[in-house]
């Protein structure tokens, strides 16, 4: 048992199999985590990192709220405040919500399609390490006292060298560039995994809704990331090489930045929400004991949201002066996004209708999403109406909107996911009592914190102000909101305590028996926690909710009756010698080079040299490293299961061929 597992879960001592690590494998220790190419471990790494950054971003949020608790606040000065709120936005969006989605996607997506790993396991590790490198690079700016301070959407020309002469915006541009590479790699990887690694019989329309939503998100990333890549390149060139893309003095139009940013930025907000929609679509059916209502509608509305998300970006620019015709067109396109989203909300409610609802913590969080996201969605529709938005934009009403959709939609959804899949990942459930405390404090606190922001915004409080004067009617609700955040913090604490206590309680006990929730999808075929090779044998899929259909059937009267117990249906997880991809050092080495190159651009080009060397050497080594180490513990071997021919057919046996693409690129 490795130390790093213990780190993740301080009290889950060595006796309790944890996470991906149910069977002892050679090596051990931190090296396993650094060199792993196992999608489950990578998922856990993503999750742990995201939670760490959540505390960082949350701490920044606390500072914001303390500063604004009273008029003429003096907790931080204007300069620091601007850095804090900017980093808060960046951290929460790029280093909390996106990696949380990556965590769930990495861990679950291969399992849900019955695969052994993702299509390109080393690329997968690479994207995690690059993401981490980018996140650390961005936060390194705090250490040099020069964090980005131009807001998360960094409107030019305020972010050019003239008006932001420090290095803050360089950290922003280069840091997000690095994080973007990670997203792009992982997007390609997951798309190909879904398309190419499905278990036999699993057609696209037999995939769980979660898998679908992740697929849509990866397509959004695939096409949206290059757009912000362009924007960030132009910004870096402007700042460091003297180009004039955003320099009005030379005749450039600063609105170019806004277009590029929001062409990325709007699809980005659906990138933030759709994974959570996917999770909710798994949790609600399970705890209602009913299939998802209108599966095809759910899938198509997700796809529709993905598509429509590309045609609405200028609703962030209603007051930029882009002309009434453009404004009108974007008003209309934005309004109609409410339609596919409404379908989702109502279908979730219809799923609950007639069910037998078990209010476990996961279900509570999922239904929390249904109601809280709606609040945010509705305020979204009010600012879709451009004339109304001219009063709302850049006020706390917007801040309220996006925290309702992001916290109330995305984050609560991820918490539902935590409670739902914790036994799958760590072999034991999270405690229900604390879970309910967790839910209610978070729900109440979140409404206390962000509900009043609607009122503040309508009262005319602008966002991104480091302080306000008394006499504008802002005092009361600001204090109120600040108190609310402390309730949220309490909620987060309950979660942390729950994680620790549950692990401690589970110590020495056998892992959670299969199928703790009477679930429906493929990941529950394997025992808890998931064995390193995922599945003993290939699952032949013949219907949506395959797992459920193996357990239950309907009798002549149409009543649902059990045909097999979960224990009978589940696999034992004891197959041996399964062909798995081997760990590699190169992803982490390559990733380490990127922030060095970034720092070199900022401070001294010589620092670029070791960075570039790291990248080149590891690329070279990567290309010539056999993806399978014949001597390694994960190396060649053959499935000794009843049907020996399986080995070749196992979809997603981490097809090492995949990695050759690394060699050509």
């Amino acid at each position, binding site marked *: 048992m490795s130390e790093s597992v213990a780190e993740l879960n301080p009290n889950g001592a060595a006796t309790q199999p944890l996470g991906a690590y149910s069977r002892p494998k050679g090596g051990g220790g931190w090296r396993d985590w650094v060199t792993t190419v196992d999608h489950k471990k990578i998922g856990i790494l993503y999750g742990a990192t995201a939670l760490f950054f959540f505390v960082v971003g949350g701490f920044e949020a606390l500072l914001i709220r303390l500063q604004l608790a009273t008029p003429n606040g003096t907790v931080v000065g204007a300069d620091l405040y601007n850095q804090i709120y900017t980093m808060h936005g960046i951290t929460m969006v790029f280093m909390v919500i996106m990696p949380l989605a990556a965590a769930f996607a990495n861990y679950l997506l291969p399992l849900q399609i019955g695969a052994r790993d993702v299509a390109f396991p080393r690329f997968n590790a690479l994207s995690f390490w690059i993401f981490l490198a980018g996140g650390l690079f961005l936060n390194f700016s705090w250490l040099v006292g020069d964090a980005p301070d131009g807001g998360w959407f960094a409107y030019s020309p305020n972010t050019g060298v003239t008006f932001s002469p420090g290095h803050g915006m360089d950290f922003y541009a280069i840091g997000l560039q690095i994080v973007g590479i990670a997203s792009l790699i992982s997007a390609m990887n997951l798309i190909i995994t879904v398309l*190419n690694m499905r278990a036999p019989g699993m057609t696209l329309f037999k995939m769980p809704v979660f898998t679908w939503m992740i697929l849509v998100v990866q397509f959004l990333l695939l096409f949206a990331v290059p757009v912000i890549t362009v924007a960030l390149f132009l910004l870096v060139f402007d700042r460091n090489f003297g180009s004039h893309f955003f320099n009005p003095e030379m005749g450039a139009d600063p609105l170019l930045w806004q277009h590029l940013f929001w062409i990325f930025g709007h699809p980005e907000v659906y990138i933030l929400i759709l994974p959570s929609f996917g999770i909710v679509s798994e949790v609600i059916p399970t705890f209602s004991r009913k299939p998802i209502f209108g599966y095809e509608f759910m899938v198509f509305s997700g796809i529709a949201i993905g598509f429509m998300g590309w045609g609405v970006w200028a609703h962030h620019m209603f007051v930029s002066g882009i002309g009434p015709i453009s404004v009108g067109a974007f008003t209309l396109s934005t309004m109609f996004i409410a339609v596919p989203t409404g379908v989702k909300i109502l279908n979730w409610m219809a799923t609950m209708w007639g069910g037998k609802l078990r209010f476990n913590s996961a279900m509570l969080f999922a239904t929390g999403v249904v109601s809280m996201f709606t609040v945010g969605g509705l305020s979204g529709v009010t600012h879709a109406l451009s004339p109304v938005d001219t009063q709302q934009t850049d006020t706390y009403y917007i801040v309220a909107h996006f925290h309702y959709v992001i916290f109330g939609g995305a984050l609560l959804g991820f918490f539902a996911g935590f409670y739902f899949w914790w036994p799958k990942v760590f072999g034991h459930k999270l405690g229900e009592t604390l879970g309910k405390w967790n839910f209610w404090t978070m729900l109440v606190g979140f409404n206390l914190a962000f509900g009043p922001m609607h009122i503040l915004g309508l009262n005319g409080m602008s966002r991104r102000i480091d302080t306000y004067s008394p006499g504008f009617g802002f005092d009361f609700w600001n204090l109120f909101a600040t108190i609310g955040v402390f309730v949220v913090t309490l909620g987060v604490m309950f979660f942390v305590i729950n994680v620790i206590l549950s692990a401690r309680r589970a110590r020495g006990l056998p892992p959670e028996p299969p199928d703790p929730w009477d679930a429906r999808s493929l990941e529950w075929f394997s025992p808890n926690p998931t064995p390193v090779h995922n599945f003993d044998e290939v699952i032949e899929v013949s219907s949506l909710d395959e797992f459920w259909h193996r357990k239950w059937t309907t009798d002549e009267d149409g009543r649902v009756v059990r045909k097999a117990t979960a224990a009978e249906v589940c696999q034992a997880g004891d197959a041996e010698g399964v062909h798995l991809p081997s760990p590699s050092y190169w992803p982490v080495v390559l990733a380490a080079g990127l922030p060095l190159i970034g720092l070199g651009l900022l401070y001294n080009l010589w620092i670029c040299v070791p960075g570039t060397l790291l990248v080149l050497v590891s690329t070279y080594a990567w290309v010539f490293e056999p993806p399978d180490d014949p001597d390694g513990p994960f190396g060649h071997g053959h499935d000794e299961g009843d049907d020996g021919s399986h080995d070749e057919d196992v979809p997603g046996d981490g097809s090492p061929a995949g990695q050759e693409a690394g060699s050509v690129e």
Partner: protein
Amino acid sequence: MSSEAHAVHDTTTGISNNKLLMWAFLGSECLLFGGLISAYLVNRSRFHTGPAPGDIFDIPFTSVSSFVLLMSSLTMVLALSAIQRGDVRNNRIWLLATALLGSLFIGGQVYEFTTFLREGLGYTTSPFSSAFFTLTGFHGVHVSVGIVMLMSLVISSYRGTLTKKNSETVEIVGLYWHFVDVVWIFIFTVIYLVPSPTS
């Protein structure tokens, strides 16, 4: 380039992962180049006090180098066709030819850039100049990366590791190469041939 390419039937769609990866990447690149091209187009008449695009482009010269790049697509596809037949020798020759044509194109670009520089169009002269150099520079970097990949193939061919079995690698590099060519077809027409503003 060492791994035993898994038989194609491993995957659900029957398509190789690697090829799909390249196509996904190319789909993504469309938005990258689209962004750069748009950044150029909105800035092409913002030449401040510097030279205007219409004053400075040398169409006959660029036509020649565009033609060179276009023809490198032919040599590339011939290289692929050779390796698919198992003709390692011809494959190598065509790969080399492709790399050579690509280098010729890059040489042409370097020449073009230096001429422009002499005529007073530096990177920092105007929004137009920044956008022009950034767009064509990005394209040039893509071509150069392509040349590096081609040369790696040539080297591995000399070492005898590039055979009919891994013709897919050649195919994938080829896809990238053709894409870069296709982008230039776009750039050449839209940026050079469509009349540009003059000062």
